[in-house]
């Protein structure tokens, strides 16, 4: 054991059949010559002859340390406690969790046990999802949601089994749950190992280093597409979807370039802030600066006519992803495809599922107020907050303050000095369930100095 050089630990989660074993085999093949200990919880068929594949029973227990959600894995403490004494030092540890595992106990083990903390460093949580089958779990399985929420890297595997639109939709959905994870699409779990091993996702220095988009403004629509339309009648058909109604807007577009596209999105954001006029199935729609609410009715789809008076570019904005309603858009029975389309993270979650809340604020915060707010937040909401990360601009400090947490466990420290006078600012992200964006924003803003 060399305490100054802790061994990186990668946690691999994902449902049974998502491709964890394939990825493990790939890692062991490509990294051969390195001593990698694999701690497995399912009888995956590791095809590589590795003396350090160890089967473990997940023994999860609660720490009696006053932190109600602080569970750890006793089996890992025992097994790694043995492995860390070996003289032929390990290069890495891979921990595969069972399909239905909540990743929190594994992560927390490396926060709370001092020996584990000294000898090992949690490198990243990698979650694999099966592009085709994950849908059946996404909204109903808390384990599936937790695995996505905890991830530093999500591999959307088996991309060959679904079409591009479904992949886009899945990626948008995953992004809406976890705004900071890196997402990669893979077939047969083929991925450059430098993207999943030794990435330092839990290094405080790397906090939010590679996650510039999580603060991207949320859109009130989940999808937008640009179509080149002829004058005349078009048909919009929807199958029954998750909601009995959906907001919709169709705008004429001057210019298909980026400027025109951005302007249209801005216009649509404004439109979506108003109440839409209700249109029942069978109604006629016209493009224009107006929001409509397509009223399908409970458990029903709908058919609408879109009358286009002026041929040209049009942008459609839909509150939900059109795939959720299997939307088709046709003219005279002939399907029309968008020239371009973009999916957006859902701005709200009707299911109170897992979401990310990002906060960005330039002004400095008062250290005491911030500390008080965060402590109270973790005390009361720690069970719902899976991960959090942040860079804080503390009043009076020339250095950034960086922090991260897993449930109620928190670690933070002053980091490097701000580079120049324009750099200081706060960026925080919370990933969890039942998160209330406005409460979090207000709570944080109340800490401003």
């Amino acid at each position: 054991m060399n305490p100054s050089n802790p061994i990186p630990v990668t946690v691999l989660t994902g449902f049974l059949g998502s491709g964890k074993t394939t990825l493990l085999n790939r890692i062991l093949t490509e990294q051969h010559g390195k001593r990698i200990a694999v701690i497995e919880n399912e009888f995956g068929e590791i095809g590589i002859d590795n003396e350090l594949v160890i089967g473990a029973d997940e023994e999860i227990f609660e720490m009696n340390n006053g932190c109600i959600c602080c569970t750890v894995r006793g089996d890992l403490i025992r097994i790694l406690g043995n492995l860390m004494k070996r003289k032929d030092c390990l290069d890495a540890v891979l921990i595969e969790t069972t399909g239905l595992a909540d990743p929190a106990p594994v992560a927390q083990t490396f926060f709370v046990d001092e020996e584990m903390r000294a000898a090992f460093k949690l490198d990243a949580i990698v979650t694999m999802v099966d592009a085709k089958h994950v849908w059946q779990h996404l909204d109903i399985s808390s384990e599936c949601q937790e695995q996505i929420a905890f991830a530093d890297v999500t591999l959307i595997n088996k991309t060959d089994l679904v079409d591009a639109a479904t992949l886009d939709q899945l990626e948008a959905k995953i992004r809406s749950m976890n705004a900071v994870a890196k997402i990669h699409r893979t077939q047969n779990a083929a991925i450059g190992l430098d993207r999943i091993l030794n990435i330092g996702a839990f290094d405080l220095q790397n906090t939010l280093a590679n996650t510039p988009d999580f603060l991207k403004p949320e859109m009130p629509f989940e999808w937008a597409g640009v179509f080149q339309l002829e004058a005349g009648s078009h048909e919009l058909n929807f199958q029954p979807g998750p909601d009995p109604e959906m907001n919709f807007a169709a705008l004429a577009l001057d210019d298909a370039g980026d400027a025109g596209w951005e302007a249209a999105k801005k216009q649509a954001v404004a439109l979506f802030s108003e109440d839409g006029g209700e249109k029942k199935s069978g109604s006629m729609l016209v493009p224009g600066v107006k929001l409509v609410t397509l009223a399908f009715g409970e458990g029903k789809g709908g058919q609408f006519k879109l009358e286009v008076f002026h041929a040209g570019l049009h942008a459609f904005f839909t509150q939900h992803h059109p795939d959720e309603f299997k939307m088709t858009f046709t003219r005279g029975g002939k399907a029309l495809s968008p020239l371009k389309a973009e999916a957006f993270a859902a701005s709200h979650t009707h299911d109170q599922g897992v979401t990310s809340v990002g906060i960005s604020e330039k002004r400095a915060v008062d250290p005491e107020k911030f500390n008080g707010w965060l402590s109270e937040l973790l005390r009361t909401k720690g069970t719902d907050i899976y991960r959090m990360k942040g860079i804080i601009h503390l009043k009076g400090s020339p250095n950034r303050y960086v922090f991260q947490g897993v449930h109620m466990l928190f670690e933070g420290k002053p980091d490097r000095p701000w580079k120049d006078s324009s750099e200081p600012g706060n960026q925080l992200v919370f990933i969890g369930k039942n998160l209330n964006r406005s409460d979090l924003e207000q709570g944080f803003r109340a800490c401003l100095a």
Partner: protein
Amino acid sequence: MTPNTFQLDDPVLALDWSPDGRRLAVAGISGPCAVVDTTTGIAAQRLAGHPGGTLALSWSAKGDLIATGGQDGKVKLWVADSGALLRELDGGAAWVEHVAFSPDGGHLATTAGKRLRLWKANGELAFEFAAHESTVSALQWRADGKGVATACYGKIRCFRIGEPKPYEMLDWKASLLSLAWSPNGRYLASSTQENTIQFFRLPSAGREPLQMTGYPSKVKNLAWDRTATFLASGGGEVITVWNVSGQGPAGSLPLQLVGHPKNLSALAYQRRGDLLASGCEAGAVFVWNPSQCLWPVNDPTPTEERVFAMRLPAAINELRWSPDETAIAVGCQDGTVAITRIAAATGAQSGSTQVRTST
């Protein structure tokens, strides 16, 4: 006095003396074991141990057999004189983490995962107990050899040999990491993941355990003195010795033995004498005589009384008194095995002399 040393090509995981004190069995963490002549420091036998790693070792009280357990799920019985593998037994799970011959040599108890198995000395299965709720974390024989105790998450069980059900079930909702059964059989102490010691009086009759708290880190070692008066514990750099006589340890101040530069990693009391040997992660080995210190402790000022000191090159992983209690064997993280006589040992047994050696 220069110790006899033997170099194992692997961190020392376990060691045990032969009953006559002439040989020492040592196990390396990655598997290989050796039987070392304690007077010459030369390996008399080499045992292959277990592929993947050896996890436990015990020398039978009759002297003829050595039992080992390992990461191959096996319990192996070796002929001590020849080093030949006599029998290979199925431990019941992937890692056989504990093997222990009874003090009378009649039985061997082994644990693997949730399984506790009891074997006759010849390797015949005598009994398999009902599975524990979680992996057995500790195993200890009662001093009279008629009972055995196990710890797992949240529970300690005491079994009488010949009875399938435990005669004591002690509950404490925590990850229990170790067991120390007092020589008189009346107390059981267990350290926990949360840096505490739970202290049970037997029979428990449903009483809650006492809790000893305030340790700066996990308590890795516990040791009882022969009179079951003192419980020594190592958590952090300081050895804390509790006096459990009378009303103690509740509300009492423990003795604190200071001097180890790093966290304690081994503790052993003599079985018939009063000396306590300790080892730490910095390689320091000390021998103390807590009974000679000022009891009761009236103020918490730490004491620095030592009767022996030695510095080895690496962290101390194991430490055992010789059967005649005149020497200790120490196994280190770098594979060093040192056997050294303790000059004070004989004298201290009578309680009359105390030799002080400074570092």
